[in-house]
C-alpha cells in the first residue's frame, strides 16, 4: 500500500506515574468555578518563559507534560537530597555537613552582596543555623537557644497520667499515650528505663501506642523554612546510644534550617508556552509584571526564534491530535512524539519539520543530502523510532502581513511522511517486519 503502517507505541516496562489528563484545563463538569486557578502564571526571565509557583508547576507539568524542570532531567523533582529520615513527625532530607556549609556560604555571599555589614550577616546566620531540637526529646544537648518558632519547653514527664500535660496547638484532642503508662502497658517499668532519646529517635512502623501526639505539639514555623538533617560528628557520649539506633557510628543527625533554599522552576519552550496561551487560554505570561497579549507573544517568539511559525504549527498540530511533542535535540530532530506522555510510552516518532510553499517546493529549513538523511535514519532506527518528515504547507496567497498574526495558523496544512529504508536482501524486508 502507499500509506505507511501505524505501529502501536511501545509501552514502558515500568510506569511509576498515573495519568491525570491531557491538558491543564478542567472540563466544565468539574473544576470550573472551583478554588483552583484556571489561568496559570508564567514570567519571562532572561528571554525564557518560566513558571515559578509550585502549584502551577505541578498543574502544568502534571497534565500534558509541558516544560522541563530547570534542575531536573524532565519532571521538576529536584530535591536537596535523595536520603530522607524521620524526624519527629516529618521526613526530612539528610545532607552532609560539607553540603550544609556550602549552603551557609551561599547565603552569606547573597547577604553580603545585598550590602549588609559582615557582622550583621554573621549574626543573622548564627541565629539561622541553630540546631532545631527534635520534638519530644529531652533537651539536654540543645538547650533552647531562641530558635524560630520552636516552642516546646514543656516538661516531659509523660508517664504519669493518661494525658500528657503539654499545651497543644489548635486545641486538638491529643492521642493518649499508652506506652509507658503503667495502667495500660505491662512493660511500663521497662519502658522507663529505656533511654528517652533512643525511643523517640527510632522509627516504629505502625506500632500500637507509638507516639503520635508530638505532631500537634510543635507547629512548624513560617512555611518558607526548609528543615534539613545534617550529618555531623557525634560526641563521645552519644556514640553508644546512636549505635543502638542503627545510625552510622560517629554520626548524628542534627536538624537545622536550610539558609539557602534552591527553588526549582519549570521552563517552557516557546512553542509550549504559546500553545498554553493561545490554544488553551490557561496561561498568562508576564514580562516585568505586565501581562502580554497573544499578539505580543507571537511577535516576541517570532523574533526570538527563527521559523517559529513553522515549528509552532507542527507543535500545535501534534497536540491537537492528542500526542505529546517534546524536544528532539537528543536525536537530532525537532520533536519527539509521545503517546500520553514520556513516563508511559517510549517515543514513537522523531519528527523533522520542514516548510513548503504553495507549489510544494521547500527544503529550506534543513536541506538534506542523502548522506545526512541516511545518517539520521540510522540513528532513528537504532533508538527504535520512526523518522517522520512534517511538511507545513502554506497557501500561496499567504501574505507577510497575515504571517504577523497567529491567525495564519488556520490556513496552514500539514503533511506527514514516514521515511524508512527498504533492505533488498530477501530475508529482511523492513517493510514487512511488523
Amino acid at each position, binding site marked *: 500500500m502507499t500509506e505507511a503502517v501505524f505501529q502501536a507505541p511501545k509501552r514502558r516496562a515500568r510506569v511509576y506515574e498515573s495519568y491525570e489528563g491531557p491538558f491543564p484545563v478542567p472540563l466544565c463538569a468539574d473544576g470550573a468555578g472551583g478554588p483552583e486557578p484556571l489561568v496559570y502564571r508564567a514570567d519571562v526571565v532572561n528571554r525564557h518563559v518560566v513558571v515559578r509557583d509550585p502549584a502551577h508547576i505541578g498543574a502544568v507539568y502534571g497534565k500534558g507534560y509541558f516544560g522541563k524542570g530547570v534542575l531536573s532531567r524532565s519532571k521538576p523533582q529536584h530535591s536537596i537530597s535523595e536520603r530522607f529520615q524521620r524526624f519527629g513527625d516529618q521526613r526530612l532530607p539528610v545532607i552532609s555537613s560539607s553540603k550544609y556549609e556550602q549552603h551557609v556560604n551561599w547565603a552569606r555571599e547573597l547577604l553580603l552582596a545585598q550590602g549588609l555589614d559582615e557582622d550583621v550577616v554573621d549574626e543573622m546566620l548564627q541565629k539561622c543555623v541553630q540546631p532545631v531540637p527534635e520534638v519530644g526529646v529531652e533537651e539536654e544537648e540543645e538547650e533552647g537557644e531562641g530558635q524560630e518558632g520552636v516552642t516546646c519547653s514543656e516538661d516531659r514527664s509523660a508517664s504519669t497520667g493518661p494525658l500528657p500535660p503539654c499545651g497543644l496547638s489548635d486545641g486538638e484532642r491529643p492521642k493518649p499515650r499508652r506506652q509507658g503508662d503503667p495502667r495500660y502497658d505491662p512493660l511500663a517499668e521497662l519502658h522507663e528505663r529505656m533511654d528517652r532519646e533512643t525511643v523517640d529517635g527510632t522509627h516504629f512502623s505502625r506500632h500500637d501506642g507509638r507516639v503520635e501526639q508530638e505532631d500537634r505539639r510543635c507547629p512548624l514555623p513560617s512555611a518558607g523554612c526548609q528543615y534539613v538533617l545534617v550529618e555531623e560528628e557525634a560526641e563521645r557520649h552519644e556514640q553508644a546510644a546512636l549505635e543502638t539506633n542503627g545510625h552510622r557510628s560517629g554520626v548524628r543527625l542534627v536538624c537545622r534550617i536550610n539558609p539557602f533554599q534552591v527553588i526549582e522552576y519549570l521552563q517552557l519552550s516557546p512553542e509550549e508556552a504559546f500553545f498554553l496561551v*493561545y490554544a488553551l487560554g490557561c496561561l498568562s505570561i508576564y514580562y516585568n509584571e505586565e501581562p502580554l497579549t497573544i499578539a505580543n507573544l507571537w511577535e516576541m517568539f517570532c523574533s526570538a526564534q527563527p521559523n517559529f511559525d513553522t515549528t509552532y504549527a507542527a507543535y500545535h498540530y501534534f497536540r491537537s491530535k492528542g500526542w505529546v511533542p517534546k524536544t528532539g535535540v537528543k536525536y537530532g530532530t525537532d520533536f519527539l512524539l509521545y503517546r500520553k506522555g514520556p513516563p508511559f510510552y517510549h517515543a514513537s516518532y522523531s519528527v523533522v519539520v520542514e516548510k513548503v510553499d504553495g507549489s510544494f517546493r521547500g527544503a529550506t529549513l534543513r536541506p538534506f543530502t542523502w548522506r545526512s538523511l541516511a545518517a539520521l535514519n540510522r540513528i532513528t532506527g537504532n533508538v527504535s523510532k520512526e523518522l517522520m518528515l512534517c511538511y507545513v504547507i502554506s497557501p500561496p496567497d499567504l501574505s507577510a502581513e497575515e504571517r504577523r498574526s497567529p491567525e495564519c495558523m488556520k490556513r496552514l496544512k500539514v503533511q506527514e511522511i514516514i521515511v524508512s529504508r527498504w533492505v533488498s536482501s530477501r530475508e529482511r524486508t523492513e517493510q514487512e517486519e511488523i
Partner: protein
Amino acid sequence: REPETEASDVALLPSELFAARSRCHRIPARGQKDFLPDGSALQRERLERSLEEHWSLVSEERVERLGALVQAEWIPSKRVVELRTPAGKFWQTMGFSEHGKQFLLPEEALYLMECGSVQVFLHGLPLSIQEGYEMFLSPSTVTLQQYEVFSHLKRLGYIVTRFEPSCVLSHYERTLNLPVQRDRQGRALKRKRNHEAKNQRFDPENHPDSLTEEKDQGEVEDKPVAMESTSDAVLARNWWVDRSPRSPMSPTRSQAPRWDFFTITFPDLGARGPLSPLVAPDPTVLPGELSVSECELTPWLQRLNLRKERLSRREQEREQARRRYQRSVNDDKEVRRCGNWAEYQELLRRRRRHHGQRDRPPHLWESTVKPLVQPGQHTSPGELLDKISIIKPSRLLDGAARLEEGADEWKISFDVFQPDTVAEFKKSKPGKPYSRLCVCSFEGPVPDLRVLKQLAFQSGDIPVTFAVVDHGDISFYCFKDFQLPTDVSH
C-alpha cells in the same frame, strides 16, 4: 559446433577445460573483521592472503558450454537484442515477442551476458562485457545507475520490468476492472481517456463528460464511492438549476413574517396529565392545498419509549454519583428572582464578568487575537481537541494532479515484483508490482515534497521506492504518506 570453428572465443585446451570444470566453486569465507590496523605481521599476512583469494576469484574466466548459450544479435537502430536461438528459462520473466521473433531489452541482455546465459553478436562478432556496457547503456535506453539497480535486484531474485506510465490505471479505471491489453513491447494500448468508445459499459445516466471534467480538475479521490458521489453531485447540480426560481433564497424577507407567535401555542407534550388533542392549524399558514385535521396524541405517545431504563449496577452507581453533585438551576435564588429570559441572560452575563478576571483575563480575551478555547468551557476531551484542531492534515495526493510534469531527473524507471511470485509471473499480465523504483545518485539531491507528490501521482496506488546509487552500493528509501491518528486516551 566446435569451439575452434568460431572465429571469436579463446579456444581452451582440454586441460584448461578440465581445470575449469573441477575448480572449487566455494566462495572463500572471510572471518572476523579487525577494527584497527595494528601493524603486526600476522594481520598483514592475513590481509594479503584474503586479497589474493579475492583477486584470483575475480580474475577467473567464466567457462560456459557453448550449447547452453543463447545466441542473439544487437540491433542498434531499434536498441534491442534479437534472439537467434530459442530462449531459455529466463524467458518467463524477461524479454518480449514481436512479429514472431523474440527480443530482449538492452539491460536484460547485458544482465544475461554477465550471467553467462546469452552471447550477443554484432556484425557477426561476439561482444565482450565491456562492449556490452558501452553500447547497451545510454541515456536513451538505460543509464549505468539504472542498470546497477536492475542487476542488483535481478541477482537477488526480484522481477524487474520497465515502467510504462500508460499502464498506470487511474482509480476510476481500476474500479471498472478492465482487462489490460498490452502491445508488442509490453506497453499497454493507450486507451482513449474520454471513454467515448466504451459507452456500452456505462449507465446512460452517468454523464461521462462531466466525470472526466471532475477527474481533470479535481484531485484524485481515494474513496471507493467516488463514482457515486460525482454522479450525485451531477444530479444535485441539475436539481438546483431546475428549482432556482423557487429557491428559498428568493427575496421574501421584505415582507413581514406571516406567523404571529403570540397566538400560536406550543403544547407541552411532556406533561403527565391528560393531554387534549392538538387543534387543527390555521389553513392560511399551510402551503398549497394541504389540510390538516385535529391530531390525537395518545397513539403517538404510545409509540414513544417511555419505559424506565434498566441500568447495570455500575451505571446506577455512576448515575448516583453524578446526581449527588447536580444542582438544579431552579434552586438558585438569583435565578428564581429573574422574571424572564432576558433577565436570566443578564444574570449569566454578570456572573461571567465576575469570574472574568479569573477565567478570562482581559489581556487575553479583550485583544485582537483571542485564545481558541476558554478553560472549563468544554464537556469532553474529544471536543477540546476538535476545537483546537485548526490546522488540517493534507494527503500526499492532494494537489498532485495540477503539478506539471517534473524534470527528467525524477522519474520512475522500473516496476519490481516479489521473488516468490516468479512461478506465476506472466509477462502479458504481470499484475500489480510490489513497488516502483526511482533511481537517483547518492551525490544528488533528496526529493522534496513536490517531487514526492509528482511521483506518487504518476505511480497510482503503488508505493515508490528510491534507489540511491553510490558507486555500485545501493540503498533503498521509501517516503510514505502517513496520517497520525488522533489519540483521545480516556
